[in-house]
C-alpha cells in the first residue's frame, strides 16, 4: 500500500493505461503544456509527447466529437472536460453520437471512449460552475456513469473505464483532488457496476457517492450514530449506471430503512431511480419510505451561507435518518 492524492491516483491510471496501450491518448483544454487545469495530467506530456497528450481549443462539442470519431476507428481517447459543466455544449455529441453509435450502426461501430473531469460544486463557483450532472447522463442508454469516492476506487475504476469498449462518463470531484488515500502497490482494476459497503450497520442503510459521501456523509455518520444510538450501514455504489441494486437491496432487507444522499437536484435525480427500484423490489422489507437528501431545487448561489444551505449537509442527513426511524428530532 502507498498513500497518494486523488489527483495522483487518476494520473497513475492514465499513465499506466497509456503505457499499456498505444491507442490510448488524452485530449482536452490545458491538459498538455499547462499540465492540466487541476494538474491531473501533470507530466504526461513530458512523458508521452504532444502526439498523445493534446491541448485543444475551447470547443467541447468539436473535440468530444473528434474523440468519438477516433474511437469509432479504433483509438481509445480519454477526453477531459475541464469541468463537467462545460460538457453541456457537447451534450448532443455524447447523447446522440457516443451513446447511440453502436446500436444505430447495427454493431458496426462501437465507441471506446472515456469522458472525464470534475463535477459538482466546489466553493463559490455559483450556478453555472457547480452542477452535479450524473442524472442527465445516466438517463441515456448506451452510457455508463462512474463516480468514485476514494483514491483506490478512482484509480481502479478509471483503468477499467479506459479498457471498457463503451462510452464512459467518469465524474471526479475538484475539491477532492488533494485528498489522500491508500492504494495497492501492485497493478489492479475495480470492476464497473459493483458497489461497496463502506461501513456495516444494522438500523439504516445510507447510499451515497462521490464527494458528498467522502466529505459529508462519512463525517456525519459516526456523530449521528452516537447521538441517536443507532448503527448505520453506508453503501457506495461507485458506479451510477449500471447501478448495483442487489447490494443495496441486500442491505435494506437487513436494515429495513434507506436514505439516499446525493449532490444533484431532486427532480428525476439518480436517487429517485434508486428509491423506485429498491422500493419495488424490497417493498415488504421497508419499514419506512425511502428518504432522499439532495441539493435544493434551485441554481446554486455564490454566497457561502446560501451555498451551504443548498447542498446536502449533516443536519439534513440527520433529519432524513430520524424520519426513516420515526424519531422526532426534538426527543
Amino acid at each position: 500500500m502507498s498513500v497518494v492524492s486523488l489527483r495522483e491516483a487518476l494520473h497513475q491510471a492514465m499513465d499506466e493505461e497509456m503505457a499499456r496501450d498505444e491507442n490510448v491518448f488524452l485530449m482536452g483544454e490545458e491538459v498538455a503544456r499547462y499540465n492540466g487545469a487541476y494538474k491531473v495530467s501533470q507530466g504526461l506530456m513530458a512523458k508521452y509527447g504532444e502526439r498523445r497528450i493534446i491541448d485543444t481549443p475551447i470547443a467541447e462539442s468539436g473535440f468530444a466529437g473528434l474523440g468519438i470519431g477516433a474511437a469509432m476507428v479504433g483509438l481509445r481517447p480519454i477526453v477531459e472536460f475541464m469541468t463537467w459543466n462545460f460538457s453541456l455544449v457537447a451534450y448532443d455529441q455524447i447523447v446522440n453520437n457516443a451513446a447511440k453509435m453502436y446500436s444505430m450502426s447495427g454493431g458496426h461501430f462501437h465507441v471506446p471512449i472515456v469522458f472525464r473531469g470534475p463535477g459538482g460544486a466546489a466553493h463559490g463557483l455559483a450556478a453555472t460552475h457547480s452542477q452535479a450532472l450524473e442524472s442527465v447522463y445516466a438517463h441515456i442508454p448506451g452510457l455508463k456513469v462512474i463516480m468514485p469516492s476514494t483514491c483506490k476506487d478512482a484509480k481502479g475504476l478509471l483503468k477499467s473505464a479506459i479498457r471498457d469498449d463503451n462510452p464512459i462518463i467518469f465524474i471526479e470531484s475538484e475539491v477532492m483532488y488533494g485528498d489522500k488515500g491508500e492504494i495497492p502497490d501492485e497493478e489492479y482494476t475495480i470492476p464497473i457496476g459493483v458497489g461497496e459497503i463502506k461501513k456495516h450497520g444494522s438500523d439504516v442503510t445510507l447510499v451515497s457517492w462521490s464527494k458528498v459521501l467522502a466529505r459529508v456523509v462519512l463525517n456525519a455518520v459516526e456523530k449521528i450514530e452516537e447521538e441517536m444510538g443507532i448503527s448505520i450501514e453506508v453503501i457506495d455504489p461507485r458506479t451510477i449506471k449500471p447501478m448495483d441494486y442487489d447490494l443495496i437491496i441486500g442491505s435494506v432487507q437487513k436494515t429495513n430503512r434507506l436514505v439516499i444522499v446525493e449532490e444533484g437536484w431532486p427532480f428525476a435525480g439518480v436517487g429517485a431511480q434508486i428509491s423506485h427500484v429498491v422500493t419495488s423490489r424490497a417493498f415488504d422489507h421497508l419499514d419506512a419510505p425511502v428518504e432522499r437528501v439532495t441539493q435544493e431545487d434551485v441554481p446554486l448561489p455564490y454566497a457561502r451561507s446560501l451555498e451551504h444551505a443548498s447542498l446536502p449537509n449533516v443536519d439534513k442527513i440527520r433529519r432524513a435518518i430520524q424520519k426513516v426511524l420515526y424519531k422526532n428530532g426534538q426527543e
Partner: protein
Amino acid sequence: MSTPLGLSRETLLRWYDDMLLVRRFEEKCAQLYGMGKIMGFCHLYNGQEAVSTGAIMGALQPDDYVITAYRDHGQAISKGVNPKAIMAELLGKSTGTTKGKGGSMHIFDREKNFLGGHAIVGSHLPLAAGFAFASKYRKEKRVCLCFMGDGATNIGDFHEALNLAALWKLPVIYIIENNLYSMGTSVERSSAVEDLSKKALAFDMRKEVIDGSSVLEVYEKVKKAVDHARVTYEPSLLDIRTYRQRGHSMSDPIHGHYRTKEEVEEKKKNDPIHLFGELLKKEGIADESQFEEADKRIKALVEECVEFAENSPEPSPEELWKDVYYGE
C-alpha cells in the same frame, strides 16, 4: 483514342452505371415509400449523383473513410455498400446494413469504411475530423471525405470541426453538397455569405467551388484535394454546386413556397446523368443502345434488391437488446 481526362472507357462507363444505379434506386425508394414499405424519413439523392460518384467512386481508395448526413443512399452505393443490404435496411429487415436498427438515415458499413449516415445536422463533422485524426495518429495515408448540406454550414459543429481540422492539419475533405436549399430555406436566407466556400477563410483552409452537375469536374477537383491531403495532411473545404430534384424528404413537396416549378424544370436541364451521357456519346465512348442496355441491367438489379429485401426476415425480438453495450 483519347478519352476525357485520359480515363479508361471502363472507368467512365462504371461511373455512368453508378450514377444511374443511384437514380433508379432512389426512384424505387419513392415507390416503396408510397406503398408504406419504407417508414420514417427518407431523403432522396436525385440530381446530386455526380457528387457521390465523382468524389467517392472516382477520387477515393477503398480504405479511405466516407461519412455523410441522412441523405446517404448515394454515397453508400458509390462507396460499394451492397445496395441489397441498403434496400433491406429501408424495409427494416435483419439483412439490412444495420439489421433494421438505423433505417434510411443511418446507413453504416465497417468493411467498406462507410461511417454513416448521420441525422443531426452538423454533428458528424467532428467525427470526420476524428477519423482523419486517427489516420494521422497511426501514420496512415487514409483520408476522409465528409459530406454535408449547405444548411449544415451555419451550425456550431461546422466551425469547431473545421478549426480543429485546419489547426491540427487533419486529412479530411469537407464537401458541401450545396443544393441551394436546406428544406425550404435558400442559402441567402440562412448564411451571411452566399459563396459558402468563403467560410474556409476563417480557417485559412484550402477551398474550391465545383460544378456538381459534371461528374468529371467533381472527380478532378476532389481528387486534387484528396491527393493534397494524402501528402500534406491538409484539409479542404469544397463547395459543390448541385440541385435536389425532389422534395427535401418524402413528405415534402418538390416545389412550393420556396422554389418554383419553373426553377426545378430549368435545373433539371442540367441533370448530371443526362449531361454525362451526352458527353460519352459526343466522345464516342457509348451510344444510345448501350445506355438502354445499362438501364435494363440496372433496373433489374434494383428489382433484385427489392426482392432480396422483401424476402428477408424481420429482426428477431432479442435484437432489441443487442448492440447497446459492446461485449455485453
